[in-house]
């Protein structure tokens, strides 16, 4: 054991330190501005922290998120304001909140300042209010959030701006009991932007949170349909003989806007279309941006092929280069999807294999990059599963996902002209948004013998036919001896 008598008590005290929500006065927030951009199923929150170091040599800054807020957040990224590379973050959970520890790009000296931006994407945070709307009524949503942005450090001034795309905000709550922090009004509104603040000299420890933290809600109008993809099953099949990567998405769409009050009137729908004033909660079509070089696209649902689609292809680009132009697929579901309605469909397309697969000739290793999802703009995918089917006989399979997955597994998929089946890697995710369009990389090896096995298994079938004929010719079926 160590020499000094105070080592053990010091060790015990330092073991208790993570349970304190105050990290000690290592930093001070000169200003926090939280901007909330309201959407339908997605809400984009961007919080800027203007920090000042109070102690020398600080390399980690901590951001606190309440448990409720962390549960709503499906994507987080921290950056220095003005730069594009994200900073490394690690999460800790304490009894009251989540703490994100951000590694600063370089250590800050005493009184050194830095602007950090935390961008998050919240899903399933708005709900339609009123819950029912007739076909010609507007779509009104409600969003709730905490009034104060919590932080382990003292904040000199903070404000929260809630921005709605449409300028007509129906109502917003006025905070109570905040007179000790305000100098001017506690909330102001200008068009579609509501500003709560500025609030001065805030220290959000547990007493403050218990006494002053309150939730504020905004009731606003939203002019686009609120769509959730309840389940998405993506299958990517690799064919070395056909030099082709086929990607197929089976999706179940749900319109999470206000449910339809009354019955659907086709007459009303057609007259709205004719006057070009369609109700905001009706989804009649949407656009997908597919990779360049797409061929053989198909769109069908349970009833059969859906012909109301239009594909404009973009020329194929080399592997790894940034796409300048995407193929545009405009889809119109078989029927307009009103509030509370569902629509299930399957779309698929082929892309040349050389755009996605690389080959390392020295080690004989192939590597494929498959995008996790093709986002429908403004939607959240509740439950996604991506299955990558490798050629038959693939071995040494290794894979990496761009962001942590819920689970991954390997299985065998049996398809045309297979003898033993093809290995498949399956990833499951939840709450995906347009920020989650990363690429999954899978590396595998396929020997030439596995490629030939496919053709030779068909040859064996042909040969068995010839063998049968060989024996059949030698069997005499004459009834009478000649």
């Amino acid at each position: 054991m160590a020499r000094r008598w105070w080592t053990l008590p010091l060790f015990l005290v330092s073991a208790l330190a993570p349970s304190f929500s105050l990290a000690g006065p290592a930093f001070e927030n000169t200003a926090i501005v939280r901007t909330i951009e309201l959407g339908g199923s997605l809400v984009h929150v961007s919080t800027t922290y203007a920090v000042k170091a109070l102690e020398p040599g600080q390399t980690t800054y901590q951001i606190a998120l309440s448990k409720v807020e962390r549960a709503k957040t499906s994507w987080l990224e921290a950056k220095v304001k003005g730069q594009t590379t994200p900073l490394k973050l690690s999460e800790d959970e304490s009894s009251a909140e989540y703490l994100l520890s951000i590694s600063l790009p370089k250590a800050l000296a005493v009184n050194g300042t830095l602007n950090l931006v935390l961008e998050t994407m919240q899903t399933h945070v708005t709900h339609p209010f009123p819950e029912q709307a007739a076909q010609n009524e507007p779509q009104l949503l409600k969003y709730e959030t905490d009034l104060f942005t919590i932080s382990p450090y003292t904040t000199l001034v903070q404000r929260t701006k809630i921005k709605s795309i449409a300028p007509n905000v129906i109502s917003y709550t006025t905070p109570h009991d905040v007179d000790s922090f305000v100098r001017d009004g506690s909330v102001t509104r200008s068009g579609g932007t509501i500003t709560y603040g500025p609030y001065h000299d805030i220290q959000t420890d547990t007493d403050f949170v218990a006494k002053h933290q309150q939730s504020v809600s905004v009731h606003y109008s939203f002019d686009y349909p609120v769509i959730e993809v309840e389940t998405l099953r993506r299958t990517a099949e690799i064919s070395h003989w056909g030099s082709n990567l086929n990607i197929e998405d089976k999706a179940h769409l749900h319109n999470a806007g206000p449910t339809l009050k009354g019955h659907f009137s086709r007459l009303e729908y057609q007259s709205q279309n004719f006057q070009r004033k369609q109700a905001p909660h009706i989804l009649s079509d949407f656009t997908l941006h597919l990779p360049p070089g797409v061929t053989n696209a198909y769109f069908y649902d349970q009833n059969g092929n859906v012909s109301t689609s239009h594909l404009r292809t973009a020329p194929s680009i080399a592997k790894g280069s940034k796409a300048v132009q995407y193929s545009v697929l405009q889809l119109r579901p078989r029927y307009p999807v009103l509030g509370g309605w569902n629509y299930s469909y399957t779309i698929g397309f082929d892309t040349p294999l050389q755009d996605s697969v690389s080959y390392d000739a020295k080690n004989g290793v192939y590597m494929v990059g498959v995008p996790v999802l093709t986002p429908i703009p403004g939607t959240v995918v509740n439950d996604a599963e991506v299955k990558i089917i490798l050629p038959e006989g693939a071995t040494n399979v290794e894979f990496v996902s761009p962001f942590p997955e819920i689970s991954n597994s390997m299985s065998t998929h049996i398809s045309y002209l297979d003898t033993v089946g093809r290995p498949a890697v399956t990833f499951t995710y939840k709450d995906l948004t347009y920020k989650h369009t990363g690429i999954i990389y899978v590396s595998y090896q396929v020997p030439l013998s596995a490629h030939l096995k496919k053709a030779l298994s068909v040859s064996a079938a042909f040969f068995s036919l010839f063998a049968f004929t060989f024996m059949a010719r030698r069997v005499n079926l004459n009834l009478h001896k000649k």
Partner: protein
Amino acid sequence: MDNYEAIQALHNSLPPFSPYVPASLLPSIALILLASTFTLAFYFSTLPKDTFPLRETAVASLASVLGGFGVVALFCSAGVNV
């Protein structure tokens, strides 16, 4: 995430996949191979019945191998992409 970035850079720098047979030639190859399989099968049916079936086995093996590759090429050119 450094690992992911390294893998991504590796994937972008390696040469792209090139098939053994270019995809644009597959329909023609399918036609040629299956036509020869058909012809050889017909020829097989005209061969005499010997005690040592050397010729019959040779013709049957050649026809099946060509037929195997022809069927794979046919599937790929029809869009099934095995």
